[in-house]
């Protein structure tokens, strides 16, 4: 995959010699019979904005709480900046956390909430409040410093919580669903604000979220979790374009998955026999043998819809538009093939078309072989 030319030092995970800033090694956490986190290995580098993504109950929050020190790993070790964190209580760790509920102290003013951590550090009152004031200016809340948390809106509370967790300049900031309680519009604005703040302060962020869009927008890298294990770690583009398993492919974005068996594997092309699609050409992949069961994954936007059979197309099928949704910038289609397979395809609406493809029309779907991702699990 050819990414844009970014200096290698901004992507230390691509450099085998780079030293990770946070190192999670073989960490397992069990609660009674239940295994919340199972043998997780994770290296995170300085200045990263790492997203742990997964459905609720996948262990992402437990992993975050172990980094903060609220839970002790049943097995394995956690190292932050070269220091082993076993037996270090949360109040002595170089980490701060932004809680999902924000956890603002209800009996303290905004200003006191933000200054609390600095006062515990032993800072003089005047200095602590001055630094708290600077932080509140950064999140544009300096006018509300004297208010109590219950006099603030959800978005304002979120910013107080962020200011409070950043004021101590932690080496590592842990954010548990930081935007979960905001409405959609505010969430999108805040995402970019969060990235800006992270870049300005150079603090390493680990964000836990169940929202794939959020993870894709925020993250330098994403760790997709399932059942206490990490399914895949990679840059957002890698996760989307080259998922390692059907779970990841399906979890991030929309995908069409087709089962098939390898029929012929040439060095430049592979032919898969699928009960739903017939013979499909897919990109070659090493290590596959004839007759092996595989899955082909293809994103909806990779399909081209046309009324006539496209000339020279290697993979093309005819079907009927069963459903169509016009979203504005694009249209989504569900096309039923003669084999009964339902294909989700989308087209971006670049031009105002006179007669767009619509319900009950017979259409041709085509997709280049390289658009498929061949999965074995």
């Amino acid at each position, binding site marked *: 995959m050819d990414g844009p030319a970014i200096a290698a030092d901004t992507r230390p995970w691509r450099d085998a010699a780079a030293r990770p800033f946070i190192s999670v090694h073989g960490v397992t956490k069990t609660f009674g019979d239940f295994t919340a986190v199972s043998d997780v290995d994770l290296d995170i580098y300085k200045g990263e904005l790492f997203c742990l993504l997964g459905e609720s109950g996948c262990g992402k929050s437990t992993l975050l709480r172990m980094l903060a020190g609220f839970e002790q790993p049943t097995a394995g070790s956690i190292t932050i900046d070269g220091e082993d964190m076993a037996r270090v209580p949360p109040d002595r760790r170089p980490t701060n*956390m932004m809680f999902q*509920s924000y956890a603002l102290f209800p009996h303290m003013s905004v200003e006191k909430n933000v200054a609390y951590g600095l006062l515990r550090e032993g800072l003089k009152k005047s200095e602590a409040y001055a630094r708290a004031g600077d932080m509140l200016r950064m999140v544009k809340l300096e006018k509300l410093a004297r208010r109590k948390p219950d006099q603030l809106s959800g978005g304002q509370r979120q910013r107080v919580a962020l200011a409070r*967790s950043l004021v101590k300049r932690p080496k590592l900031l842990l954010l548990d669903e930081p935007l979960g309680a905001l409405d959609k519009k505010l969430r999108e604005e805040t995402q970019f604000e969060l990235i800006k703040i992270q870049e300005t302060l150079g603090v390493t962020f680990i964000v836990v979220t169940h929202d794939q869009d959020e993870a894709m927008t925020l993250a330098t890298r994403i760790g997709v979790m399932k059942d206490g294990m990490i399914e895949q770690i990679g840059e957002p583009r890698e996760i989307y374009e080259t998922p390692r398993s059907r779970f990841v492919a399906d979890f991030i974005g929309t995908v069409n998955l087709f089962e098939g068996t390898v029929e012929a594997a040439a060095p430049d092309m592979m032919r898969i026999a699928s009960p739903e699609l017939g013979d499909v050409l897919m990109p070659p992949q090493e290590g596959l043998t004839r007759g092996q069961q595989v899955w082909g994954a293809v994103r909806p936007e990779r399909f081209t819809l046309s009324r006539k059979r496209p000339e020279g197309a290697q993979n093309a099928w005819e079907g009927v538009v069963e459903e169509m949704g016009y979203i504005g910038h694009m249209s989504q289609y569900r096309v039923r093939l003669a084999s009964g397979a339902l294909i989700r395809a989308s087209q971006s609406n670049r031009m105002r078309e006179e007669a767009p493809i619509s319900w009950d029309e017979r259409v041709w779907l085509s997709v280049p072989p390289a658009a498929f991702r061949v999965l074995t699990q």
Partner: protein
Amino acid sequence: MRGWFLPMAVALGFIFLYAPIISLVVFSFNDSRLVTVWGGFSTRWYGELLRDRQILGSAWISLQVAFWSANLAVIVGTLGAFVLTRFGGFTGRLLLTGMITAPLVMPEVITGLSLLLLFVSMELTLGWPAGRGLTTIIIAHTTFCAAFVAVIAQSRLRQMDESLEEAARDLGAGPVRVFFDITLPVIAPALVAGWLLAFTLSLDDLVIASFVSGPGASTLPMVIFSKVRLGVSPDVNALATIIIGFVLVAVIIAGWMMRRAARKSA
């Protein structure tokens, strides 16, 4: 049927509950020496009450007992509740839960008797408390009031968002600091309510106090009870009216505090 049944039931219920109290309050303003015969409005029994040294003395003792046992009950009850809600599943947790709430359901006679036996044997072996009086009543009242405080504090601690405490830990406060900086202020309204409840319960108690008090330390309920046994005199009505006033105010404040605390946490 619905039209008249509900208001009627409510009215009957209220009459059943409050008619005796209202008649007591009304007759406290009776001019007649006979308790059951109305002889015109007067406040003379309130004046007479103020001249009664025995009643004033016992009222002072009751207030002292109530004040100190409420203070101690809040401390003991809060610690108990904190341990039960925040220390997870330690050995003996179930036993402690039972022990803390036992005084709520234990017959007062048994509580009183067992405490009396305890105090007597403690005096024989340890030499403390020397004799029975104010101290023993305070200790006895603390034990059963602490149970009520523990129940109130426990429910508040359960409602409280535990991430508040975690956030304070995360910002660099040790566990003791967190308790005083965060936990205590957040549950304070519930503790005030618990204090008022403990104060009222202690002020009301007759049975336990009778067991563990000694000469010269008769509480107000004890004095009233002994007076009534010799025949009800109108000044007792006046005294009862004053007590009802006190208790009413305390209960209203306690209820308001608890409601406010619940609202804040929501």
